């Protein structure tokens, strides 16, 4: 079991090395699939183990004692994240190949994609704060390359915003990690809670907030999110799908760790304020903009607010709901960007004014959009509804009525902006003009459409198996809420 824990990072890295050496695109594809599937298989193995045993798997790298080595820690949360991320990475890779966009144009698509995968895996598993910083750098550097892969003028411009902001984020994170070490003499996340708790209040506050700022930039919370809607829309949809689905979630994941492990406390009013503002201001942006990718990008921000809300409430139920929200949101958000890719391929545009009547043109495409869109807006019986229900329930349980009201309003506004896309692009006179009933993209790009459909089936499956899944999430929350469990598992009790 412990050996399995290393594979989700090692295999993609190995694959990355090989894809740099071998530049034939068919070989690269084979390598990518094999390594990502291997990583996914290992993650599933860990998940199954944890679902049955309910413990924490620890791997001490280099075989050194726990206090010395970097550890990989697989608890229920990280295993779940690994599996979902792994599955999404495989599917989106297939989509990208079907799209014949990015990987054909640059031999560096596959290496960068695999490095991204490794970085994401490492971020979920690392039990060492400095190593977490390194994981961030891995996934960030890979994301810089992916975002500027085609090197168009637009990509370079928005890439600049993205890169500079994230570089600054890295600096803040590095400062925070360095200062944490300076104050405690360790960067092991198992040892930190105890040592951090002994520090004077001021130092604790400063370190805590610095970490939150760093992860907040990555997660794109108010008022640190501004870069995201400018940066994401220029990449190919397959790249944006992964970014939207996974990168911000890494930030959320780290915020969960900060709030439950490093600075455990039951909830935080500050985070609730941030959550409310993030939800609303994000969705306001979505309501204002008139381009599909932009609208979807603003929704990323808005949805992040919900997860921050769960962290801010901080009860076990709230954490379970947050984890469930992560599980729901990753495939839903990714699938919307994939659908956007299909729309763009079908019509050549994603501006709301340029496209119309898609529902007449291609009913299945309309369904592919409608399901995740309604899920995102939180309508039953889709997964988004359950996720929001869980959070709202946790909020009322904890007496945090104001933020729940904000959340419900935000979901109404989400519905507004989703119908905006629907009414402009899917209803109305078919435009650009083509005969009714022509199903272009779905027929001619079976790989793109089937992978998109697969992700959407996944989102529906999340709703169907919500019972056992939420049960697992509750178990994950139980592990999170007591840092002693983590500590005991890593250091040995």
């Amino acid at each position, binding site marked *: 079991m412990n050996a399995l824990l290393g594979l989700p990072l090692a295999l993609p890295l190995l694959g990355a090395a090989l894809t740099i050496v071998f530049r034939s695109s068919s070989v690269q594809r084979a390598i990518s699939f094999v390594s990502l599937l291997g990583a996914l298989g290992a993650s599933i193995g860990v998940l199954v183990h944890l679902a049955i045993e309910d413990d924490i798997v620890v791997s001490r790298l280099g075989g050194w004692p726990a206090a010395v080595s970097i550890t990989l820690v697989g608890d229920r949360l990280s295993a779940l994240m690994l599996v979902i991320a792994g599955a999404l990475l495989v599917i989106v890779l297939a989509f990208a190949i079907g799209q014949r966009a990015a990987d054909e144009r640059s031999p560096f698509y596959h290496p960068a994609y695999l490095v991204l995968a490794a970085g994401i895996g490492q971020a979920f598993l690392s039990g060492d704060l400095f190593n977490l910083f390194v994981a961030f*750098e891995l996934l960030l550097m890979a994301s810089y390359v992916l975002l500027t892969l085609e090197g168009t003028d637009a990509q370079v411009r928005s890439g600049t915003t993205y890169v500079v902001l994230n570089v600054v984020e890295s600096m803040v994170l590095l400062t925070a990690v360095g200062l944490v070490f300076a104050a405690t003499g360790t960067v092991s996340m198992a040892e930190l809670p105890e040592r951090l708790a002994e520090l004077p209040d001021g130092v604790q506050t400063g370190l805590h907030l610095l970490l939150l700022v760093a992860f907040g930039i990555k997660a794109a919370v108010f008022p640190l999110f501004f870069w995201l809607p400018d940066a994401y829309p220029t990449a190919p949809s397959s790249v944006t799908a992964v970014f939207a689905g996974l990168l911000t979630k890494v930030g959320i994941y780290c915020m969960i760790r900060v709030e439950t492990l490093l600075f455990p406390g039951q909830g935080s009013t500050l985070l609730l304020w941030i959550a409310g503002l993030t939800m609303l201001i994000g969705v306001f942006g979505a309501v204002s903009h008139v381009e599909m990718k932009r609208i979807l990008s603003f929704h990323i921000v808005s949805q992040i607010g919900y997860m921050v809300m769960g962290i801010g409430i901080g009860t076990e139920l709230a954490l379970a709901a947050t984890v469930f929200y992560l599980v729901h949101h990753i495939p839903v958000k990714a699938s919307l960007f994939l659908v956007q890719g299909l729309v763009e391929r079908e019509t050549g545009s994603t501006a709301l004014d340029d496209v119309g009547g898609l529902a007449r043109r291609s009913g299945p495409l309309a369904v592919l959009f409608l399901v995740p869109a309604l899920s995102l807006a939180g309508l039953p019986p889709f997964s988004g509804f359950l996720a929001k229900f869980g959070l709202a329930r946790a909020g009322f349980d904890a007496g945090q009525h104001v933020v729940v009201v904000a959340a419900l309003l935000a979901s109404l506004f989400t519905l507004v902006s989703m119908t905006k896309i629907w009414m402009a692009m899917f209803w109305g006179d078919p435009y650009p003009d083509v005969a009714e009933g022509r199903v272009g993209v779905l027929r001619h790009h079976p790989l793109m459409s089937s992978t998109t459909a697969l992700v959407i089936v996944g989102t529906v499956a999340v709703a169907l198996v919500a019972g056992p899944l939420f049960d697992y999430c509750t178990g994950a929350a139980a592990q999170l809420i007591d840092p002693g469990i983590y500590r005991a598992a890593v250091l040995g009790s």
Partner: protein
Amino acid sequence: MLVLVLLHAVVAAVVLSATRLRGTVAAALGIAVFAATAVTAALQGIGSDVPATQSWDWVPDLGLQLTTRLDGFAVVMVLLVSVIGAIVLAYSASYFEPGPTRVRFTGLFIAFAGAMTGLVAAADLFTMFVFWELTSVCSFLLIGLNDRSASARNAALRALLVTGAGGLCLLAAVILLQVAVGTTDLAELGSRSPAGAMVTTAAVLALTGAFTKSAQFPFHFWLPGAMAAPTPVSAYLHSATMVKAGIVLMARLAPVFGDLAVWRWLVVVCGGTTMVLGGLRAMRQTDAKLLLAHSTVSQLGFLTILVGLGIPGATYAGVAHLVAHAVFKAGLFLGVGAIDHATGTRDIRRFSGLGREMPQLAVMMGLAAASMAGVIPLLGFATKEKALVALLDADAGAATVVALVAVIGGSVLSTAYSMRLMRGLFATDHRVIDPEHVHHAPGGWLVVPVGLFTVASLLGGLLADAVGGWLQAPARSLDGVEHSSLHLWPGLNLALGISLAIVAVGAVIGWRVPDEVAASPVRVSGEQIFQRLFDGLLTGSKRITVVTQSGSLLAYLAVVMAIVAGVLVAAIVTDPLAGFDELTWSDGWMQLVVAAFAVVFAAAVIAVRERFVAALLIGGVGFACAVLFALYGAPDLALTQILVETLTIVVFLLVLRQMPRGFDAPPAWAPRVVRVVISAGVGITVAAFAVMVSAARTAPSVGETYAELSLPEAGGKNIVNVILVDFRGFDTLGEITVLGTAALGVTNLVRMARRRRRTASDAATAAAVAEAELS
């Protein structure tokens, strides 16, 4: 019932995905499903004392389960939904032209019926909410069926947003009840008689949800707009079924919350206003379908008062009138649809002599309208009569008085507009200059359903005693009280007198009031409020977005850095100047000198205006830092720093040699003072916090363990190097991967730039060649 709901969904999906399916086959499939549902409901529900229950544990941890329970009321509602659904579906097969629209309609219609079946059979509030939202979505798609029409699209949006907002209120109510009472099961709620501020809030929220769905004032405006939908949709969704969802909800909750003053007054005031206002609006419509729509609003107000009050007799009358209304209103809608189909218009000012051209339709619709007007011996009379009796008998709180006044006023109006509708459609009116005539007689399938509904209204009235007997169980299942039955002839009493007076006065008004007077504008509308809110959302969010999303990287950076300084200030003020007492001046004069160099170089970097110089200066900063490292006891660090710094300068020079020598000065993003304040803030706070942190160390560093293990376990004397390749080799692995990836990124950017330049020059050449050939 859950299984049957699922069956609806499956059939709907099949119909929607089988694009080549013939419309009649699709309709037949749907009718089969409806029939199965109706039969099942009848078999399971009628005559059995223990209601059939079906349940699926969805998310046990959140207490979420889908449960249906076929009690008496549920059976009646399920029968209404599926029987009317089957008739309307049969009607629609003739109404629509063959083609994809018909199939799409059929699929969505079946899906909607499934959701509605689930809603009316729901045993707990959560289940009801789930199906509630599903009906909203289906109705959105059905209203927008003719999506090329802007008014249809916008009407669909309105309906969705208003009912969606109401749905959120209901959701909040569900959760509040879950938290406060611990259950959302309707029967359980009734038996626990909950109370408290949270429960009251939940009650008001649930009521608000019901009002949006059932088009109660001030949320009534979406319903007439929804008439942009094809007539079968209107007949089914917007009169017989979906709009009754709110009534169902109120009927279920009234026994629980009916005693709350706020509930009772909301029901009476909103229901009464809706009833009267809807009637007034109906009086000034010229489109027959819109007239019916407003009459539906009015009748919904009536039903709201009856079932919402939670008074035993009124509840019974409400259930009965609900059935009566569904039957006569569906018939009227389908009749108007048939006329529309035959003549191409619904404007009642343009008909003259239609009664002679379509006598059967005139008779049938006349009977249905009479039921609506409350004329004996039709079902509508019996139910209205019962309602008046109940309200008169109720203990005379102020609320019941208001309710009575509103019901009487509204009933007068409903007789009046019934009359107006019939006169407009069928009477011979010589003022009409160029009346519309029947272009092609409506097919049998457009007329027979109208007949069915008419017969039901008539028989229901004639057999009122028997029908009323059947409806006793449903009403009992709501409030657990025994009710007296309906009567065709109630005997001479006050209620009968009022009833007759209503019909008389209403008939006179309806016959007498000319169109011009009826069309006089009366404008009190929730619509403007909605419009203002919606526009406010758009403009407000744009304003906010323009401020937050300036699109300027520098603004974003400024915000981030200011926040960094801000959080550090928050930390520092809790313990100002902590750790400063432990500061020493320096570790020796060398360090002091080199530090001074570093400071001077750094300051020079921001002062110089030439790229090369700046690059060299930053190299100077790097070298100074390297020396500082060496002095601190870190030769590895110094060596690497020097090598990396050299390389950095090389890369800088490689890039900068292609750019202009000096920085041109683009317009500054913000006044210098802002930038200086932020920068100084960051510098000072970071340094001060660093002092604070370095003095706070409580435990020894892990480095001591490394030092012990380094030689014996890892076989190396240079601890730093052992850490890098051994203890923390994983960091190194990550670090070199980052480095390699960055190199790939650099070379990719350069390649892409070249490729773009090449394609651009190719394009330019091609253009030049083409131009040369042309000339």
